[in-house]
């Protein structure tokens, strides 16, 4: 009897599991999707995780509220938490002292310094922070990501600082921030020196991760030994100064003058080149228009408008990638070790480098105004065979020029016979009215764009250059009629040939040329069918002619459509 009962219970249990299981299994898809971590905006919080030391964390990371602490410890000042060196300059790391970077020591260092202080406060029965694990290591903070946007000390800031400091101390003294490290000097205390005209970006020496040339590496190695990463160095440099003046100002009862809070500098807002164009660039007695002429180089020299390019870029580093020396000091005709074996030709012409002329110009060419045409034009690369060699002469003129700019192009001189005002395209005329192609208007637009940009204006030497944007692949040299570029139809056949797939047929040649350009130039007009095609009244509704008979028979036949068509 009770055996029956057992079976009954067992059966019920199985039944329950089956139902529950089926339910779970049918909803499994919901669990397949991963959940993304909540991104919080860092208002002066600091996430303490040190995964580089601990790897996978046993307890959740700690979210540290810096403001609270700095408020609470106003009187005691920063030194209570941060170490200070012999010149009484604060090093902004925490905990004060970490003998060696292994899990145990780092953990203890943190725990000691935090908890001791908290304990002390509470013993002095002041408002004190937590002392229990879970109060700092909060489960809810587990997946929070606190990331400060990098701060960009652009020319505007630089200019401000120069002016402000000048009126403070009467003369401009770059040594307040800038310094170089004398690698020969034995005594480290004296090694840090300042000499006029050697001011450079902090990054050169303090960006530890980056690979450097021989002489800089020696210096960066020292910086690395002191753990002066760009992050630490700049915090030390800026904050020490800021805090000093901060105190003064506050004594004077002014509102705060210079930022000391994380979120004041790390705003995540960046100025564009255009916005910074007016700002004067730091003068370091650089030439305005140097004439670059390499000794016994094959090509003629190039006049380089350094002043213009200064305003065209955000930092010096975007060209002077290693030091503020001129290119040829490291890159010569054959390439020498300090130039990392890169010869001067490549230094200027490497299309894939951010620091070379070509590289930067190519980036410009792929901006929306230019890319419409330039998407089809092979990049001007000395390695590439495709590029037109006569283009070299545009830069390599060999004469020391005055203002580097051409007279603006104009459509005035164009012969209206040769250059049609409007072209009507008749492919697809069965379905649509022939579409009107505003040929001249387009040229005018292109001319305008070309004239507005200094770069374009300089390189597009005549209006024919612009024609090649659409009338591409026309071998100018071999053409009988020079100034009449070929029609599309001359190369692109109407028929579709499955044997020659790289030959675009006319229909798609038109669409890809027009649409491609309009898309790349992100023009709103001319992206929709109706912008070019007007549907023909009474035109055929069918766009194909021949059918697959037997399939049609299957699909259309009466008896197969029995009772319930979908």
């Amino acid at each position, binding site marked *: 009897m009770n055996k029956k009962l057992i079976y009954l219970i067992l059966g019920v249990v199985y039944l329950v599991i089956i139902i529950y299981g089926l339910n779970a299994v049918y909803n499994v898809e919901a669990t397949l999707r991963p959940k993304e971590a909540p991104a919080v905006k860092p208002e002066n919080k600091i996430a303490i995780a040190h995964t580089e030391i601990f790897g996978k964390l046993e307890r959740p990371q700690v979210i540290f509220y810096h403001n609270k602490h700095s408020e609470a410890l106003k009187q005691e000042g920063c030194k209570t938490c941060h170490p200070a060196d012999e010149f009484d300059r604060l090093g902004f790391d925490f905990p004060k002292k970490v003998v060696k970077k292994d899990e145990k020591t780092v953990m203890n260092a943190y725990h000691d310094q935090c908890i001791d202080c908290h304990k002390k406060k509470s013993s002095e029965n002041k408002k004190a922070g937590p002392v229990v694990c879970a109060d700092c290591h909060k489960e809810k903070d587990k997946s929070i990501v606190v990331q400060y946007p990098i701060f960009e000390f652009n020319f505007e800031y630089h200019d401000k600082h120069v002016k402000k400091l000048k009126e403070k101390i009467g003369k401009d003294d770059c040594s307040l921030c800038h310094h170089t490290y004398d690698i020969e000097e034995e005594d480290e205390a004296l090694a840090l020196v300042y000499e006029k005209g050697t001011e450079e970006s902090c990054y050169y020496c303090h960006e530890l991760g980056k690979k450097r040339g021989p002489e800089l590496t020696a210096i960066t190695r020292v910086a690395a030994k002191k753990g002066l990463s760009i992050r630490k160095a700049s915090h030390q440099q800026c904050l020490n100064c800021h805090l000093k003046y901060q105190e003064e100002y506050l004594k004077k009862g002014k509102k705060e003058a210079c930022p000391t809070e994380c979120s004041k500098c790390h705003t995540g807002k960046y100025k564009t080149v255009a916005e910074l164009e007016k700002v004067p660039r730091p003068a370091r007695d650089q030439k305005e228009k140097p004439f670059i002429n390499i000794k016994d180089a094959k090509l003629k020299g190039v006049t380089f408008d350094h002043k213009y390019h200064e305003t065209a870029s955000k930092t010096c580093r975007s060209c002077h990638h290693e030091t503020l020396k001129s290119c040829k000091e490291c890159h010569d005709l054959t390439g020498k070790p300090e130039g990392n074996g890169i010869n001067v030709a490549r230094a200027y012409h490497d299309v894939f480098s951010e620091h070379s002329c070509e590289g930067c110009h190519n980036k410009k060419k792929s901006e929306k105004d230019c890319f419409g045409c330039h998407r089809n034009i092979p990049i001007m690369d000395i390695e590439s065979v495709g590029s037109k060699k006569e283009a070299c002469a545009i830069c390599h003129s060999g004469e020391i020029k005055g203002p580097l700019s051409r007279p603006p192009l104009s459509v005035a001189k164009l012969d209206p016979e040769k250059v049609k005002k409007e072209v009507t395209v008749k492919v*697809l005329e069965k379905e649509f009215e022939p579409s009107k192609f505003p040929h001249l208007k387009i040229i005018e637009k292109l001319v305008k764009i070309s004239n507005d940009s200094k770069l374009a204006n300089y390189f597009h030497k005549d209006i024919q250059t612009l024609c090649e944007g659409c009338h591409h692949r026309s071998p100018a040299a071999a053409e009988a009629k020079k100034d009449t570029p070929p029609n599309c139809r001359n190369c692109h056949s109407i*028929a*579709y*040939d*499955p*044997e020659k*797939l*790289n030959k*675009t*047929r006319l*229909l*798609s040649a038109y*669409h*890809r040329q027009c*649409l491609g350009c309009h898309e790349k130039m992100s023009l709103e007009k001319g992206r*929709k*069918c*109706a912008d070019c095609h007007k549907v023909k009244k009474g035109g055929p*509704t*069918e*766009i*194909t002619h*021949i*059918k*697959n*008979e*037997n*399939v*049609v*028979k*299957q*699909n*259309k036949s009466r*008896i*197969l*459509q*029995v*009772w*319930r*068509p*979908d």
Partner: protein
Amino acid sequence: MDRRTFLKIIGSGIASAATGNLLTPGRTLAKEGPSAKELYGILVDTTRCIGCRRCEKACAEVNGLPIPDISEKANESVLKTMRKTSPTQYTITNLYKTEKGSFYVPRRCMHCNQPGCVAACLVKAMRKRPLGHVTWDLNCIGCRLCMISCPFDIPKFEYNKAIPRIQKCNLCFGRYNKGLVPGCVEVCPTEALMYGTRRNILEEGKRRIAQNPDKYIEHIYGEYEVGGTSHLYLSSVPFEQIGFRKDLGTVAYPEYSTGFLYAVPFIFVLWPIAMLGINRATKKSKEDEGHHEEKGKH
């Protein structure tokens, strides 16, 4: 093009081999071999498709299916939803928004080189035609194993018909017999769809990748997937972002059922022998043999 030339091109590799000889001697070798029976296919360049859905309309016309409305207004609303091919749509275009911009992806039967559906069909209603078209026939019994066996879920069944059919793209087999390219290719305004021998379209695809390495990812979907397909896809984002499965592997699907199919003859031969043997062996002794023999037949 006119019919004769096209037939010439298709009919025998000789024509193409000749041109191959003249233009690029390097290609002669490649041209040899079974070029007379060479698979045809379509190269789909997802970076070129502009989502005009003309291929869908053409397909519907060519195969006598309900004609879709491809006016711009209709397209906007239609392309919002992710669609699958259906009994009334052999080809559909979907819009995928990725971090490299949004891409239109036309999908239809991939026409595998070794189709699972063909291997699965017990009446050869699904057939792989000599030049690659995978077509369906009326002697189908509707077991729907082809749908199970298709890695791309392409064959669609008309559940709501008393006399249903399997519906799928047939690479315009009828038009091909007339020497024409598939309807979708004929009307494609940007040559996002390109029809040709599989070798040629593969070459073309590789050419494009080689010439604009920053535009395309270095992978042609369908070159090796499920043993190679006649539809090849180019993309500028990883294929899983535009609705393709990357876990299908490169083994032709029929391969998976070989294990069983090869075993059948052996079992048929060995089992009976073994049975008879055992049956003999388990006989008791001589005298009461007959008795057992009889008893065995109850």
